[in-house]
């Protein structure tokens, strides 16, 4: 399969957030601003690429009956490594993402890709799948984060677009995440349907 196709698949056709609706917990929890959404997307993508590669490499050494615990150990290892590096070199980012970094372990995107893709494709293909899905997740989180930040505080990536007095707090809080995500998915489906017909 063409490598670009794999990436396109992750980014558009099987976009984890807008199409598969996977990994909703970090999607709703870390998109209060564009920058946290972007960093969460990148962190998850990094772990996803590594875990996809590692799982694809060991896929024949793991007997079927113990594959789930084996995958979880691999994913948890990469997440813990990421967290230690972030604590050491990016402490402020680590603090703003908080509990969501360790929670990458239980993000269904990772286990889902391990089970559905990496465990039956070559290492190279799995890496590209990780990049594609990771990009899809990052783009979705950044988009949602930007919209919520714009509506909630009037800024995007900290740059002011609406005047200071503006701010609809609900978009900074969790209910706004649901509303914004719902409308984003509605718009995306609308565009898809229009393209199809």
């Amino acid at each position, binding site marked *: 399969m063409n490598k670009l196709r794999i990436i396109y698949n992750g980014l558009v056709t099987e976009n984890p957030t807008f199409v598969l609706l996977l990994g909703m917990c970090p999607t709703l929890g870390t998109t209060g601003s564009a920058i946290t959404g972007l960093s969460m997307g990148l962190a998850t993508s990094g772990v996803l690429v590594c875990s996809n590669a590692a799982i694809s490499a060991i896929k024949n050494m793991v007997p079927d009956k113990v594959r789930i615990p084996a995958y979880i150990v691999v994913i948890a290892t990469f997440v813990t490594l990421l967290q230690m590096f972030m604590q050491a070199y990016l402490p402020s980012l680590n603090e703003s993402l908080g509990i969501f970094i360790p929670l990458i372990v239980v993000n269904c995107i990772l286990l889902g890709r391990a089970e559905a893709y990496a465990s039956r494709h070559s290492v190279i293909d799995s890496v590209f799948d990780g990049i594609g899905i990771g990009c899809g997740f990052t783009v979705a989180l950044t988009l949602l984060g930007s919209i919520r930040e714009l509506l909630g505080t009037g800024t995007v990536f900290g740059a002011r677009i609406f005047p200071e007095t503006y701010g*609809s*707090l*609900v978009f900074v809080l969790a*209910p706004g995440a649901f509303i914004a995500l719902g409308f984003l998915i509605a718009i995306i489906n609308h565009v898809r349907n229009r393209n199809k017909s």
Partner: protein
Amino acid sequence: MAQLLTVSASPHIHTKRTVAGCMRHVTIALLPAAACALYFFGIGALIVIATSIAACAATEYIINRWMLRRPSTLADGSAILTGLLLAFNLPSNLPVWAVIIGSVVAIGIGKMAFGGLGCNIWNPALVGRVFLLISFPVQMTSWPLPLVNRSEYFDAVTGATTLGILKLGEADSASIDILASATGAIGGSLGEVSAIALLIGFIYLLCMKVITWHIPVSILGTVALFTLCIGGNLAVELLSGGLMLGACFMATDYVTSPMSKKGMLIFGVMIGLITVIIRRWGAYPEGVSFAILLMNGFVPLIDRYIKPRKFGERRSKS
């Protein structure tokens, strides 16, 4: 449409009641409270009510016309009623832009996004109010004092609501003027202040058989009982805040309340319980709107478990 109707065996009983008729009755029932709001809050109340109704009607028209491309549903009066109820849930000095945002959210997200009247899960007016409350807490929780602000809109003198004062522990419940709470000379949202005016409207609705007693009575009864159990001040808890408005007019919305009598009682009791729990232990001083919205979400479940038996059907043994 006519040929699509499935006609069952006779007898057929026709009632002259229509959706528009019911909405008109509810609107009439709200008039005494609206009059009280105008008396106590003056020009501010007028601006908020007018803006809210106009914005709700406009939103519904625009969505029907350009987004759903179907005939206008304005004639059923539900948008106007939603606008009036939303205004009743807002402080009288809320800026016009905030009222418009609330109306757009109430009709757009609360009602039309689900498919219009009859399809919405949550009470549209409350969706609008809660959206505003979470979005603009500063504007939504500064309540103009009654009477002194009749000619002021922007520079109204504000104060806390009765429940707010209790929550902060700035006064004990014994010092609160019960008579003022009953007539409405207290700080609060437009339409929630006068318990007596709301009760008049409620009795009108009961007489016109637009609603039944089950939901309001079970809500008020539960709040009263629970308050007694935890040792609160009964009159203050019943008369202040949005309880009367919520119990008589918001919770009884046909679309978002259970169909069976038994279901209505469960619905009402749970709203009462959640309200007192939020008032007593929650972060917000008032919890009626949250309680009603929460229970709105449970209505399909309640309806499913308290299904009326078909004629001749036996109760299953299991």
